């Protein structure tokens, strides 16, 4: 019995990947440790992220119509497969709590200073619960609307900011030492581009399975290019002081003042950033609930959405004590911490599937490696 009946198209997937990846990187832009060379780091990061994506896309191509939890069960067997699935689901769960904590920190430190963080957290998670319960189709539809309007607004703010651009802030180019630049590039790849590994829980619900690879690559490249644009914009507006800000995009947008009429645009920009965060949290909440339901062989994932959301909210409160600690975590620890989940698990699963010749080309047929013994004898 299928746990999810909704279906999404490739355009929806591209939009969802964009909203998902831009979600938290809009708050803490990637590649910042490279300073003015951040845009170069992000461009290198796109290449690395595409390589990481190629691994999990090969895996999903080998097992069309299966989530990572089901793939692990087929490749590793029922016991080890469950352990691998739990490790992967932990990553989605932790990532969801990080996003939630990040947004709560953003709003409670810049806008709603006197509001208790738990109230902000509850407001965000309630909407995510509602979306996750409705299914992936509804989340994707929300994504198409949010991303379309958000992109238009991004272009509009960049246009308004163009009069403050100081191209000299980008020069001299490539002054960052190579190890630091490559580390920044790796940081940009793991946060947020390769986080699209979470879509291993979503790919099975794509209308046309052949669109999975082009749609994912398009989504990652598109996101990377927009992130590069944001990095350039922040650098040419804020200059070297950009590194001092925790939320440079917010501070870049606050400078907009067109004839004393168009100003305080940051409120609207933050609303769009929040909407992207909603998309990311909703996808992760959906992924964890669906994965847990598949892990426990349940008939529906919906009863698990609220309990998982409660636990995610609690962890969100205990991730980092302040936004500075979040920046430290993203710059120093996350590029190493995320790698086993983003690359090692899919790569290991793919290698073992290739060695054991386990595959499932057709979504409705049994995997080749698990044919009933009678059929093998007949052959």
């Amino acid at each position, binding site marked *: 019995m299928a746990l999810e009946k909704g279906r999404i198209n490739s355009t929806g997937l591209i939009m969802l990947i964009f909203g998902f990846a831009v979600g938290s990187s809009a708050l803490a832009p990637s590649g910042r440790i490279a300073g003015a060379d951040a845009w170069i780091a992000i461009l290198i990061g796109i290449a690395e992220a595409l390589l990481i994506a190629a691994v999990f896309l090969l895996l999903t191509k080998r097992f069309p119509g299966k989530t990572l939890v089901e793939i692990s069960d087929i490749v590793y067997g029922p016991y080890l497969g469950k352990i691998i699935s739990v490790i992967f689901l932990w990553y989605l769960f932790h990532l969801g709590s990080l996003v939630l904590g990040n947004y709560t920190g953003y709003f409670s430190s810049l806008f709603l200073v006197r509001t208790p963080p738990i109230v902000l957290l509850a407001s965000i998670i309630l909407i995510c619960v509602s979306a996750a319960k409705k299914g992936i189709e509804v989340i994707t539809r929300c994504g198409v609307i949010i991303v379309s309007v958000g992109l238009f607004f991004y272009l509009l703010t960049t246009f308004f900011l163009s009069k403050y651009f100081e191209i000299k802030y980008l020069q001299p180019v490539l002054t960052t030492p190579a190890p630091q630049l490559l580390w920044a590039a790796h940081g940009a790849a793991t946060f947020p581009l390769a986080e699209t590994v979470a879509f291993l829980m979503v790919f099975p619900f794509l209308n046309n399975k052949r669109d999975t690879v082009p749609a994912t690559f398009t989504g990652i490249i598109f996101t990377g290019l927009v992130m590069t644009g944001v990095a350039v914009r922040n650098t040419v507006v804020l200059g070297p002081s950009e590194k001092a800000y925790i939320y440079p995009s917010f501070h870049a947008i606050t400078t907009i003042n067109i004839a004393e009429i168009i100003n305080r645009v940051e409120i609207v920009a933050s609303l769009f950033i929040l909407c992207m965060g909603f998309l990311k949290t909703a996808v992760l909440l959906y992924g964890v609930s669906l994965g847990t339901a598949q892990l*426990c062989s349940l008939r529906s994932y919906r009863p698990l959405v609220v309990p998982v959301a409660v636990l995610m909210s609690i962890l969100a409160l205990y991730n980092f004590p302040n936004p500075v600690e979040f920046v430290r975590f993203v710059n120093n620890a996350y590029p190493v911490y995320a790698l086993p989940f983003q690359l090692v698990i899919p790569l290991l699963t793919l290698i073992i599937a290739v060695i054991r010749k386990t595959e499932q080309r057709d979504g409705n047929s049994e995997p080749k490696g698990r044919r009933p013994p009678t059929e093998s004898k007949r052959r």
Partner: protein
Amino acid sequence: MVLLLIALFILIILLEIVPLVKDRQWKELAVASVLLAAGFILSVLIMYDIDFPFLAPVISNIMEKWVALPGS
């Protein structure tokens, strides 16, 4: 605050758990109850000011100790 928390969890039980009992979805009921109970216990502990360590600094410290990171 504790009363508010209990009220919140009663609301969740009424909306999420009771329909599972009505539909006789015992497996779903068991998993959802375990997760919800874990959430409730953790919430109560937080209410009573039990200090849990923050996760991100712990991971950052471990990573910085193990790996020579160019960013740190």
